[in-house]
């Protein structure tokens, strides 16, 4: 497993859909391990390469409170799915080779955008377009070990310590860059918001709260 943090020497090892049609982006470590050094090192030896699948879920048409998003909110929700994928593609090819047509097969026009985005069929088609087009465009680069990447993963939330891809403000806060960029010049850094909210922490501390033994005994005493 690859945890929350900044990791060198990764490649996109898989881009596929699961049986629910959700995009799966697999990331795998490719750093060369010198077996002699590894065996001579203190501690246990682990030859397994770290890997992690990231599920890129469809965007939601509602906010956290369950209220419907307005048109701007819907557009942002789509962008939060598409932008990380676009950022990944840009590591392998130039902008002129990245061609999205996310409204293909829908009736969306500039005039009816607000209405069309509310339709479930249109909404689902947009997600499936993004997924299919990303998989197609990534095909030549999947598993390309000759161009390893450095990647930053954020914690899903305070409560959930699993890693996820950053989805917003990616131009100024990228989450992926080629290893040819020296570590000293890396742009992969946690934002002030992420740091303040512990989204750079891989452990479960600060997330789902562990109840101490003393607290548990105190609570139990209240009901005995």
């Amino acid at each position, binding site marked *: 497993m690859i945890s929350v943090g900044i990791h060198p020497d990764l490649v996109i090892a898989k881009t596929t859909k699961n049986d629910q049609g959700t995009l799966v982006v697999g990331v795998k470590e490719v750093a060369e391990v010198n077996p002699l050094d590894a065996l001579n090192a203190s501690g246990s030896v682990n030859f397994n390469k770290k890997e992690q699948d990231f599920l890129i879920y469809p965007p939601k048409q509602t906010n956290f409170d369950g209220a419907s998003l307005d048109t701007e909110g819907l557009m942002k929700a789509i962008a939060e799915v598409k932008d990380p994928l676009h950022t990944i593609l*840009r*590591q*392998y*090819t*130039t*902008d*002129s080779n990245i061609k999205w047509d996310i409204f293909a097969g829908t009736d969306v026009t500039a005039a009816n955008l607000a209405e069309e985005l509310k339709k479930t069929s249109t909404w689902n088609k947009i997600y499936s377009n993004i997924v299919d087009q990303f998989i197609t465009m990534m095909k030549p680069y999947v598993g390309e070990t*000759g*161009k*390893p990447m450095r990647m930053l993963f954020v914690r899903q939330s305070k409560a959930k310590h699993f890693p996820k891809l950053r989805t917003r403000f990616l131009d100024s806060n990228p989450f992926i*860059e*080629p290893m*040819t*960029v*020296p570590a*000293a*010049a890396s*742009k992969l850094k946690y934002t002030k918001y992420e740091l303040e909210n512990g989204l750079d922490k891989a452990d479960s501390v600060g997330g789902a709260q562990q109840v101490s033994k003393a607290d548990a005994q105190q609570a139990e005493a209240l009901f005995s």
Partner: protein
Amino acid sequence: MYAFLQGLTLKDTGRQRKPKENSPLGFTLRIFANGEVYPSKELVTKFNLEYTNKNNENKGYGIDVIDSVDWTPTANLPRMILLGITPKTEAKVDLFATCRYDTETGNPKSTVITQGSTSETLLNLVRSMGYLTEDQKYCDLELVLEHPITMEDGIANIPKLIEKGDRKGEKTYERRENVTFYAVNTVENLAEMKTSPVATPEATTTVETN
């Protein structure tokens, strides 16, 4: 005393930069000891370096300056100064990227040849390479046009230094797409290399990114 003030009426015509005879010949840049850099007319024409009207969508090109040892794809080649011909609209272009415009017409207030640019990066490089000594007022850098350098995938993440703020001086990088880079050397050195080709540094037309 002060007779020259008699009957004098002043007129403010604004700050005027005195036209300089700074423009070198050939596909060259002239860099002065204070860091000012001026392109030749030939270079301006060849790479479309001239400033255009503020409303013109085609803004032309500027120049990125790279120390080859700081850039991973060229780090193992003999050290050289590389210049990248980059759209002016990109971020942090070192030379000839910005100018002042006439507020009414939107035209540039000066040409790229008269305005020039100032680059501490290039000045430090020509000093460290020995191209510009303390005794010299300037040196002329010529582009090695016969060996253009491109990236295999079109993507170049070129080294830059953060120039402002709390992180000033720290290393960073900027992405460039489909930019062609050229090595430069002094006009004198290149002329000498042409007569003794053994001394010419090896250069490749395509740089491996890994």
